């Protein structure tokens, strides 16, 4: 998927403006404090207003720029697969444990990104998971989950 620089800038300035409006709305519900002691809502309010201002200027600048600006390529099939795999990994890591989840993650990533055969991807996944666990978990003592499903 590709969109022009101009369109991208317009979308991002719109998103930044929305964040600014959200922050201002939330900050209004926080104690604003007094002139002598500014409260927790003071800075978010100022930042929200500033972000709205800047994003409006950015948006106007993008709107007034030439329409045939360079196209920016966005996204990639493997990118989406890897992101989904990462989210699944976060959900499964503590339940299934580091070794099986990491084996699966590396297997899926290799299958998506490379042209390796299935069994080779699996072997690499297994090797990466065990190497990671051995080096970081056992040797360096980083606490890696062993999973709750197996107890």
């Amino acid at each position, binding site marked *: 998927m590709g969109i022009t620089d101009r369109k991208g800038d317009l979308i991002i300035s719109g998103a930044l403006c929305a964040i600014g409006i959200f922050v201002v709305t939330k900050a209004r519900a926080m104690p604003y404090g007094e002139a*002598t002691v500014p409260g927790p809502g003071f800075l978010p309010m100022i930042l929200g207003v500033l972000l709205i201002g800047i994003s409006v200027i950015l948006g106007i600048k993008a709107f007034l720029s030439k329409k045939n600006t360079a196209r920016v390529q966005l996204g990639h099939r493997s990118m989406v697969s890897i992101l989904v795999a990462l989210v699944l990994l976060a959900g499964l890591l503590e339940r299934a444990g580091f070794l099986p989840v990491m084996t699966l993650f590396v297997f899926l990533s290799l299958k998506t990104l490379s042209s390796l055969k299935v069994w080779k991807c699996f072997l690499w996944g297994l090797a*990466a998971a065990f190497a990671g666990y051995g080096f970081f978990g056992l040797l*360096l003592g980083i606490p890696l989950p062993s999973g709750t499903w197996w107890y």
Partner: protein
Amino acid sequence: MIMSSLEHLLGGFLIVLTPLNLLYCFLGCLWGTIIGVLPGIGPLGGMALLLPLTFKLDPASSIIMLAGIFYGTMYGGSTTSILLNIPGEAASIVTCLDGYRMARNGRAGPALVVSALGSFVGGTLSIIALMFFAPPLAQVMLKVGPAEEFSLMILALLVVSFVGSSNVLKTVAMIILGLMIATVGMDPLTGHLRFTFGYLGFASGIDFVPMAIGLFGISEILINFENIASMEVIKPSFRTLLPRWEDLKASWGSMFRGAGIGILFGFLPGASHIISTFVSYALEKKISKHPEEFGSGKIEGVAGPESANNATTGTSLVPMLVLGIPPLPATALLMSALIIHGITPGPQLVQEHPDIFWGLIASMYVGNIMLLILNLPLVGMFVNFLRIPYAYLAPSILTLMIIGVYGVNTNTADILLMVFFGIAGYLLRKFRFDMAPLILAAVLGDKMEMSFRRALTISEGSLLIFFKSSVSKIFLVAVILILILQGMAWFMGFRRRMAEEAE
């Protein structure tokens, strides 16, 4: 003062020259070199990976190892630039211009050696600068209050916005976004929860490591997926590794000039390590008798920028250690590591924790020698990492990132946070929004807000407190000057554009 600095330095060497600290220093340097060679991780990601390991170490050993990764990455970054035409990290972009050309001309060996020597010269001179600048600056900063702190942070963020920024508006937007991120969590003065969305994990704020790894590491990998095609690696033979006498003669001056530029730029927040390389390259080209040869494999084009980017590492630690203001994202991680160990970087650090300050300086001398040894004869070994296709490398790098992020808090929500920031970073980087200002503002935001509110509490609401002390006045005058100069530059550019359009 020199004698007292040398005495302290001796104490620092006594800390470093223990077998364990030497091992941690070596591990840091080795890891840093490997990370620098691998495109896409960078010093921040490399340090974050080993951050959980440092929890079990004493603070001095932790900072010695993490700093080793930081400057080790700068050494390793040039290898990919020279052999692959792909910068291992942003500060090595300029090295591609002449380094890769030299490699194509069969002179990869001399380019790598001169780059390592330049890194050594720059790195060593900047440690000397750190050693002599930091303690007196700390003495001055001990006398400043919250008003001065706030003015200084405003100045730092303003410098980030205007120095080396390709689009000031986009950079300012990133700074505001970073400051907003810093407001997430419990307000330290009132205990009020802000923007936590009912999730208690956010009460202590958004964790730095998943945010930084997401914005820099994950986004970089996602961008690299788009051009995953195989890369041609030039492997230098050991016989051609030694530079000729003329190469060394031609590059010594460039190394020292590059070091001077890097030392000066290291104090600046933002992208100083990157800008210094461009300035050094431009200077070398300007003073060269044959400027037309630059870009076709001129050794000065490698020596100067490599020395400059390594020279920023030492002086970029001065603001972090003495002022508590990290000028680079990687130094922000060093600061986080110190805070995890209960040590707050700032003017008191030099007096209250001399073991850390002087231990770090001494370790940098030792580390630079280690890196020179690692990067000269072992360069062939590191080159082998580049032979691994990116399709195989990416899952391994992702595995390392997951372990690094999970290991800090043993919380899987941090992995999700990393993915979120990775996607945000990818989209923002695609449309040329800089990530460094966002990270720096997110790190400084907390402190900045506290200084501002404390100053107003002291002055009972009077904003004049920011103009009372001479230190604060100096910072604010600098702020006003930068704004005026930037305004003038914008106005002149605007007028030129209007005139061009009229023609």
